[in-house]
């Protein structure tokens, strides 16, 4: 298929009709519905499958679900997760002594959520993570667990995940 070149009629060759056409299109759009979201005032709701900040989830018994198997640490492409494992008296035996996620490195690919066998890490809808200092972007275990508890739609749900 060879594209056709439109041939201009004599009145189209004049300068004014062209300008008029363009102005008319712009003018018509003045009265159409606006598509811009006035961001800080107007909030935007992410769709259900949105991948935002990864957080740690708490089980129904109030303990963190993570057993520090370190699968998320190994799969993470930019290597943004660091886990130090510890032992407990609990029958699960292992728990994360330290758990860091560097949001400065995280690319929100969702691999950690995908590999986690305990469904302990989950990408919530939070996306406003900017900071003036890079060190503030490294989130520790306490903060991650706290962020996980804040999710209202996760409360009382044993399995909130859609797995790929």
């Amino acid at each position, binding site marked *: 298929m*060879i*594209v056709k070149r439109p041939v201009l009629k004599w009145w189209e060759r004049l300068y004014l009709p*062209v300008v008029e056409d363009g102005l008319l299109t712009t003018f018509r759009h003045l009265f159409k519905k606006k*598509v811009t979201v006035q961001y800080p005032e107007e909030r935007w709701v992410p*769709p259900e499958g*949105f991948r935002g900040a990864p957080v740690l989830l708490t089980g129904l018994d109030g303990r963190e679900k993570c057993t520090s198997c370190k699968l998320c640490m190994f799969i993470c492409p930019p290597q943004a997760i660091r886990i130090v494992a510890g032992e407990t008296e609990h029958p699960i035996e292992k728990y994360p002594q330290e758990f860091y996620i560097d949001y400065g490195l995280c*690319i929100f690919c*969702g691999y950690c959520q995908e590999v986690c066998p305990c469904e302990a890490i989950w990408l919530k809808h939070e996306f406003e993570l900017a900071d003036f200092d890079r060190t503030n972007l490294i989130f520790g275990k306490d903060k991650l667990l706290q962020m996980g508890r804040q999710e209202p739609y996760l409360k009382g749900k044993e399995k909130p995940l859609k797995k790929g």
Partner: protein
Amino acid sequence: MQNEKPSHLKELVETREFELNMGPQHPATHGVYRAILTLDGERIQKLNSVVGYLHRGIEKWAEYRTWQQATPIFDRLDYLSAVINCHGYVGAVEKLLQVEIPKKAEYMRVICDELQRIASHLLWFGTHALDIGAMSVLFYGVREREAIIDLFEAHFGQRLLYNAYPIGGVRLDFPKGWIQACRKFLNTFNSRIDEYEALLTENRIWKQRTIGVGVISKEDAIAYGLSGPTLRGSGVYFDVRKSIPYSAYPDFDFEIPLGKNGDVYDRYLCRIREMRQSVRIINQALDGMPEGELKGKVPKIIRSPQGEVYFTVEGSKGQLGFYIVSDGKDKPFRVHIKSPSFINLQGLDVMSKNQLIADMVAIIGSIDIVLGEVDR
């Protein structure tokens, strides 16, 4: 020749060539690209491209990651068409592993690829027009692109770099109501293009800026290895979707728009027509979507066989190829990317010969380079 001096002046007036740097911080180069122009008056005699300002070592980076881990980095090649890049890499690995991909997954991939092609062309449409001087087109182009990004966000969960496909198929089925939303977008899209074309295609000013500018002949285009709309604008029938069919493309009925003269205007027309063809493909894919599995049989920890593989897809800029060498471990031994923008950039020297400096922005805009892909 216009730029030759009259003979009686040649002995009297001494002239010399002038070197001018365009970029690396020039808004019309669409990134950090530098062109050293050798000028004779206002006409360009020679163009030297200087690339590498955005080099991130993606090919090397991939060698230190497992097969799955390396997937998201290829989104960052041509960040305006991340889905197609992902398809290229994932397809190459699947070819290496000889995985059978379910029909439904292939159809879903085609739908997302074509939507991404439209999105990429829309942004090109806006910025190319902005370079030449038509301001309002950018707003319209970005508005339509936003609708596509919203669709992708609901499906993939991200807005720009999607990490779209896992090796072996697709991650999730389309969410509830997605197909209706997609159809709604497609129904309005063709009339929207008509509206935007009314601004440019028959515009006298637009035609004066683009017709006869940046001409590259058929032979030159092939010799320089160009691909995509830049090649098809010169009238060469080559599209990976037709010539080296992959995925589910043989199932669909669509045409490849070709230009004739190989100037900026032809490349513009080709891309506009391509968007309409993409709409046709998506409509057919949505109609004929089969039921079935989403993912083929791929082990969780991939250990690939030894060997080499080359897989190409038709990216939004041209032929995007992945050449992978595997030494039988869980990581690629070497990943080479044949990126269309980098190779299309070679043709710029030929296109800009004897053109005015003012037309440079039109020519660079017409080959639609993304510097993330040029420098890798």
